[in-house]
């Protein structure tokens, strides 16, 4: 029961109170770039959840049994980014060969994710927070879900912006950023929520 409670707290924290995109500024490029339409937003976020979970599952044992065991923690940044880059390529090949439907759904987004700071970010954050394996996995999936929530909400906001009459000097990127600011402001309302529930 305590385990379920702590997992739930981690998920709620990473989805709502510490949303990766809107509160921590990780993964802004895809958030601004791919959020124009709902279906691309969902596809991209599904790929992000998938890669985040996979990256955590692979980097956790590497870190624990290879790096920490040999006192090589300072190599974390290099090792993690290379593992993630290689992993994404591998996943792309495997999906293409064995799971074409899934590849068609997620494949096109995968190369974009290699250099996405959210994936490396979640792996490093699990590290600094000192999470165990199960907690790391939960946190990664939660962060991915948070990314999806932000993307889906924002794609709705952007579809409204399309038809809006925007002052000329704000057209394009500025109004998108200001809209993001308002969405982010609404997420600030969740501050203290998790502590309140699990106090």
């Amino acid at each position: 029961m305590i385990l379920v409670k702590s997992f739930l707290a981690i998920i709620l924290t990473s989805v709502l109170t510490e949303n990766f995109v809107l509160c921590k500024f990780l993964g802004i490029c895809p958030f601004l770039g791919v959020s124009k339409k709902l279906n691309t937003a969902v596809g991209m976020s599904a790929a992000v959840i998938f890669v985040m979970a996979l990256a955590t599952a692979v980097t956790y044992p590497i870190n624990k049994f290879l790096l920490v065991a040999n006192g090589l923690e300072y190599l974390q940044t290099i090792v993690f980014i290379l593992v993630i880059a290689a992993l994404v390529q591998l996943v792309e090949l495997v999906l293409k060969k064995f799971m074409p439907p899934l590849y068609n759904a997620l494949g096109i987004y995968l190369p974009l994710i290699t250099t996405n700071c959210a994936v490396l970010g979640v792996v490093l954050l699990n590290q600094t927070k000192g999470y165990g394996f199960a907690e790391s996995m939960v946190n990664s999936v939660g962060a991915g879900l948070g990314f999806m929530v932000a993307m889906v909400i924002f794609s709705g906001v952007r579809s409204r912006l399309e038809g809006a009459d925007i002052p000329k000097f704000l057209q394009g990127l500025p109004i998108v950023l200001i809209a993001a600011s308002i969405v982010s402001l609404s997420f600030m309302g969740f501050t203290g929520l998790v502590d309140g529930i699990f106090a």
Partner: protein
Amino acid sequence: MAEKKSLGKEFTKGLIAENPVFRLVLGTCPTLATSTSVVNALGMGISAMIVLVCSNIVISLLRKVIPSKVRIPAYIVVIASFVTIVQMIVKAFVPALDSALGVFLPLIVVNCIILGRAEAFAGKNSVVASAVDGLGMGVGFTIALCLMASVREILGAGTFLAGAQNLLVLFGDNVLGGFNGFTLPWTEYLTPMTVFILAPGGFLTFGLLMACANRLAESKGKPRAELGGCQACPMAKNCALLAEGKACNDEKKEGEAV
């Protein structure tokens, strides 16, 4: 081969005309996250600049050795090595900055500005030109960060350069007479708008400054800044999303970058 430009031009183009943040719209994540105070912004900008210059030099030296098929992983290794070095130096000598920047210090690895410059410039140009290009882009990034941070710190905290000793500790204790930033005079009567320090203020400041930058660019007859996200991304060439014409920026798909 890029046409021969004078070194001065390589340097100044990164400052305003091709400012990585406001014109090329690269590196948005660290820009938003670390511009909460001018001191943090300076620290981030300088760290990124060091990585950018060093990796540009090494990549330019190795440009004839690295096979083009594996160049992206090779660039990532070079960049990650320098990030690790900078990270260790910052941890050892400026610990307060390390805790302020947190995860964004190692995340310099995936900063699009650095990989983008490696791909677009250092991989094709001479060592000196690459170093100067890196320096210009780094200074441009730092200026943009400091601009954002000045607005956010003054409006959000009512201070300017607060915590300067965190950076100055590099030169010894109590340099400049223990200068630790200004508190703005009107904070006695007005409560600062904390929201500018928080996440929404970051987006808002960035949006408004971007609008100003666009206005300036238009008055000079240059195009508005568009989200470079996809086209400027070093993965653009092998990105299936772009190849299928489903680019993130639908209307801009023919502008194949690099």
